[in-house]
C-alpha cells in the first residue's frame, strides 16, 4: 500500500460495521454530527472520540493508511485546538480538536465499510423527494462517486507534475507545480465530462 491509497476508500470486510444496514451507518454519522454540536465541553467530545476510535478498530480500518490520510486533519485539529486554547482556554481547544477528528474519522469508517455503489443508491433514495424542485438524484449521487474516484487521481497527477518540475530543476517553484496541475485538472474534468456523456451518465430521470 502506498500513500496514494486514500484513507476513505472502500475495503471489503465482514465486521459488524460492514454488515450493519447502511441506514444505520449514515444515520449514526448524521446523529454524531448533530451530537457534536449539541453536546458541549471537553469530556463529552473526548468520549465521542473514544467511541469513534473503537468503531474504527472494530471496522478494522488499516491504521497506517488511515493515519496517513488523516494527517492533514490531525495537523489542522492541533493548530485550531492550540489557537483556541491560547485564546479561550483548554476546554474549548480540546473540544474543537476532538470534534473535528471524531467527525472525519467517523466519515472514514462509513466510506471504508460502504461500497460506492451502495452509497450511490442511498444518495439517490435520500434525494428523491428533491426531484420536485429540479434536483436530479442520479446526477448528485454520481458527483459523490466521482469525488471519491477523483481524489487518488489528483494525488497521482500532483506527483507526476512535481516530478516534471523536478526534472526541469524547478523543485522549489510553487508556480511550476500549481499552474500545470490546475491546467491538467481542468483538462481531466473536460475529458471525464465527455466520457460521462459517451456512457449516457447520469441515467435520465424517469418521467
Amino acid at each position, binding site marked *: 500500500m502506498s500513500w496514494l491509497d486514500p484513507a476513505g476508500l472502500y475495503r471489503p470486510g465482514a465486521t459488524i460495521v460492514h454488515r450493519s444496514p447502511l441506514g444505520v451507518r449514515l444515520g449514526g454519522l448524521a446523529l454524531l454530527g448533530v451530537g457534536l454540536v449539541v453536546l458541549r465541553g471537553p469530556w463529552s467530545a473526548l468520549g465521542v472520540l473514544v467511541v469513534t476510535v473503537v468503531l474504527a478498530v472494530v471496522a478494522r480500518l488499516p491504521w497506517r493508511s488511515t493515519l496517513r490520510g488523516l494527517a492533514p486533519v490531525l495537523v489542522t485539529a492541533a493548530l485550531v485546538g492550540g489557537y483556541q486554547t491560547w485564546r479561550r482556554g483548554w476546554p474549548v481547544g480540546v473540544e474543537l480538536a476532538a470534534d473535528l477528528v471524531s467527525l472525519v474519522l467517523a466519515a472514514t469508517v462509513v466510506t471504508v465499510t460502504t461500497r460506492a455503489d451502495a452509497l450511490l443508491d442511498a444518495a439517490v433514495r435520500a434525494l428523491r423527494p428533491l426531484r420536485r424542485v429540479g434536483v436530479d438524484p442520479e446526477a448528485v449521487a454520481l458527483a459523490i462517486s466521482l469525488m471519491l*474516484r477523483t481524489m487518488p487521481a489528483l494525488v497521482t497527477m500532483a506527483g507526476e507534475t512535481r516530478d516534471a518540475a523536478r526534472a526541469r530543476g524547478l523543485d522549489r517553484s510553487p508556480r511550476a507545480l500549481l499552474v500545470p496541475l490546475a491546467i491538467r485538472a481542468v483538462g481531466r474534468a473536460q475529458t471525464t465530462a465527455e466520457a460521462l456523456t*459517451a456512457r449516457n451518465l447520469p*441515467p435520465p430521470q424517469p418521467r
Partner: protein
Amino acid sequence: MIELERAGVTVSAADGTTRVLLHPTTVTLSERRVAVIGANGSGKSTLARLVNGLRPPTTGRVRTLGLDVAEHGPEVRARVGFVFTDPDAQLVMPTAVEDVALSLRRSIPRRREREDAARAWLERIGLGDRATTPVHALSGGQKQLLALAGVLATEPRVLVCDEPTTLLDLRWRRVVDALLDEVDAQVLLVTHDLDAARRADRVLLVHEGRVLHDGPAGSTVDAYVALMAVR
C-alpha cells in the same frame, strides 16, 4: 450501420481560427470491422465522435443505426459504446466491480443482481480477481480492459474505439485486440496500429481533415505508408 452524408465539423483552433474537418464526407459503413487511420491531428477522433453524437455535425448529417445523431444523441449513445484512449478519464467509480455496475444501473435495478452481472463481465475479460481492487491501483492495460468491460456490459450494437491501445505495451495491446476481435458489435477502430488496421474489413485514411482513401485494408494501409514516407 453508420451513415455519413456530406458531414463536416467546424472546429476552433487555439489561435481563434476555425476550420472545417471532414466536409464533405459521404460514406456508408456496414462492414463488421472498420478501421480509421491517419496522422495525429488529421481528424480521426473527430470522425469517431461524430458516430455517437459526441460531436454533432455542423454540416450534413450522420445517422448511426438509422438514428440521426444530432437529434437523438442519448438514444444513439445507449446503443453505441465508446472507448477512449486514456481509460482514466472513463473510469468513474472507486473500484472495478462498481464501475462496471454503474453501466448496468439502467438495465438492472437491483444492486445484488447488478453486482453479480458486473462480476460476470469482469470474469469474462480476465479481471475476475480484481473486482474490488481500487481503479487507481490497476495497471494501464487492466484499466483499459475495465473500460472496455464497462462499455461491453451495456451490450452496444456499435463499438467505437478511439486509439484504445496507444498507451499500452505489446502484451496488453494483444489482449485488447483479441477482445475486440471477439466482439459481436460492429467495431469502428481509430488506430495507429497498422497491424490492427490490416485485420479490418474496410479502412478509411483521414488526412488533413479529409477522407483521402477508403477501401480494403491492404491498399489503404499501403497508401498511408506511402503518404507518411519521410522524404
